[in-house]
């Protein structure tokens, strides 16, 4: 309400609201406000600290357990926690490979499609097409991931993949494609931003030399926007690695160490949500601590990708802004 007033006459409102206060009181008031604001900012810091402390503390219960050798965690190719009551194997590779198999399929689909769509939107699209494509992308971006998981199970697997070969009811391919659909709008909008950030002068220069639109796009705009596009790819990668509901619904719950996209493939996120949901998590047991160990690995990976993405993004911003 105050907003509307201010827009019509800001000075009047400011004067009427603050006229009676002495400068000293105002300064005191302000320092109070700043303290509250710092408190708000602290919450985000506390979230990070809380996450890191929790992951270190709880996963130490896993790594310091006498049954566990860190070497085996990093090299063994079988993961049987939550799968057997006998001798457990706890190599992270099946989960890690599951994550990257699905991520790979997702990016294989999302990156070229997203990039080309971004190029089309930024360089070619007439207004009418844009008016359809942009909202479609926004709607796609707003669709909850659990819906895409449903789509993978009820459409992609039975109708798209099953006719193509011996796909298991839960498989890496359908989950991968669904995660790809999820990443598509993200890649498109970030890549389009990067392409649009390329200064007009570069394009005009190239056109002036008689280049066709294709040549301008491929030889001038794309290289100039490369860092932005790479950072878009990295953010999409982080998103795909952390995606949970699609894989929980569509990828099955068997940790496998294979390259076959027709096989089920439990990911790190899938393992966490499955184990937490089935509540085979009696605190103090190995399977309880293993959740945190897997989460710590997941956290490290996404953190690394995000940071690299941020660095590249900031660099390209500096160049053109």
């Amino acid at each position, binding site marked *: 309400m105050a907003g509307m007033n*201010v827009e019509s006459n*800001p*000075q009047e409102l*400011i004067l009427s609201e*603050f006229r009676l206060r002495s400068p000293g009181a*105002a*300064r005191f*008031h*302000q320092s109070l*406000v*700043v303290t*509250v*604001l710092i408190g708000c*900012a602290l919450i*985000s810091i506390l*979230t*990070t600290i*809380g*996450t890191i402390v*929790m992951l270190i503390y709880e996963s130490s219960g896993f790594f310091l357990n006498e049954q566990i050798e860190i070497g085996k965690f990093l090299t063994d190719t079988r993961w049987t926690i939550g799968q057997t009551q006998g001798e457990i194997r706890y190599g992270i590779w099946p989960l890690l490979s599951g994550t990257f198999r699905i991520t790979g399929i997702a990016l294989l689909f999302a990156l070229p*499609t997203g990039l*080309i*769509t971004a190029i*089309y939107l930024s360089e*070619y*699209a007439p207004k009418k097409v844009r008016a359809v*494509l942009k909202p*479609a992308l926004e709607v796609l971006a*707003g*669709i909850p*991931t*659990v*819906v895409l998981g*449903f*789509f993978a199970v*009820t*459409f992609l697997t039975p109708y798209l993949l099953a006719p193509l070969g011996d796909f298991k009811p839960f498989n890496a391919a359908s989950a991968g494609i669904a995660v790809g659909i999820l990443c*598509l709008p993200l890649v*498109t909008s970030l890549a389009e931003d990067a392409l649009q950030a390329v200064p007009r002068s570069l394009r005009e220069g190239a056109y002036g*030399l008689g280049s066709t639109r*294709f040549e301008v796009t491929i030889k001038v705009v794309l290289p100039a926007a490369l860092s932005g596009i790479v950072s878009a790819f990295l953010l999409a990668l982080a998103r795909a690695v*952390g995606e*949970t*509901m699609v894989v*929980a*619904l569509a990828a099955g719950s068997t940790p496998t160490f294979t390259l076959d996209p027709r096989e089920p493939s439990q990911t790190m996120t899938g393992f*966490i*949500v499955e184990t*937490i*949901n089935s*509540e085979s998590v009696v605190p103090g047991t190995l399977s309880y601590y293993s*959740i*945190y160990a897997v*989460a710590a690995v*997941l956290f490290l990976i*996404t*953190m690394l*990708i*995000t940071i690299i993405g*941020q660095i590249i993004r900031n660099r390209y911003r500096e160049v053109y802004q």
Partner: protein
Amino acid sequence: MSQIPDQLKHDSAGRNERRSRKSNSFAVICLLISGLVIVILVTLLTTILTKGAGSLNWNFLTSVHVENQPELSGIWQALVGSMVICLICGLFALPVGIGTAIYLEEFKPKQRTMRRFQGLVQLNINNLAGIPSIVYGILGVTAFVYMFGLFDRIQVNQIPEYEMGAEYFYQVNTISNRRQGIQGRFVSFPAKDPSQPTFEINEPIEVTDGGGQSFMLNVIADDLPMPTDPELLERTVRRGTVASRFARYQASHFHLPLGKSILAAGLTLALVILPIIIIASQEAIRAVPNSLREAAFGMGATRWQVVRGTVLPSALPGIMTGAILSMSRAVGEAAPIIAVMGGILGTTRGLSNLMDASPVLPVTIYKWSSHQNVAYENLAAGAIIVLLVFLLLMNSVAIWIRYHFERKQGAF
């Protein structure tokens, strides 16, 4: 410079034509691939509509999940749960998020340590946005459900250590014997000392029955015959009968740790969307022209007065748009909620206070679509339609705000 005319000379008309043809065919390829977005979207929506349209009816919207009876099941509790969780999430994440954004954008400190602090916060927020939501879910379990083990766990037959909004009563069944067709009546009375789980009735005491009617409980000794008057019999217990404690919860009911409650889930979701709200608000604040700030400073306003009187009002539409968009992200999240509240499909009473657990739409969709009974798959599709409509409504509010205020600001 002299090379260009050379090249042009060598360029036959055919080559130019090839170049332009290449360019045109690339445009067509681009158009086709971009069209994939539309194809995907249409397929997705068609799949959901064909599967789900049949299950949409009034009963579906107003009833709750019934196990193994999909024809009776509905989404009422999930719908309410989603709305409440959205509200909790917004109430917490909005002030904190906007506060952080204001601090980062408008209160750039001069001291080096504070500048470093701000840099850290900014870096941290960008990284928080990249953390998978399931990791937030685990954090929610540790930080909200169990509160780092600082308090005793919530257990059955025990009153939580820190609690409010709970009234304790004892209840007892009056003399009953189904073999003889004596049903008995469940009566209750307030607990004077709630710490005792049971209460032995040795003397008459005023009790209330199901209809809210109060009367004195008739207590008879063990060896006396039962009263023959059925009305009196209904008001009689034997001496030494043990009444047991139960709680009635008010809407303000609250306890620590939060346990698997909708409040814990809402707070967890707030953490998930906090970075998104902060980033969106920062951008909205950045978009406010500097001239506005300078004008206000020129009139002697303090920085906070400038922010409150000038910056915030004109950044508000942008902030609200970002906030609504990130809250619609929260409404669609399932993974952190499964971690915090568990995959609940329904509760007996429905949501009556913030300490209750509740189903929400995305979790219901998840549980239904992994249900072995295929009929639930169609219900899941129906629930998806409702969820999408819900999101659509939220987004249209955002679009309306953007449109409405952009027009106003245009006159500015």
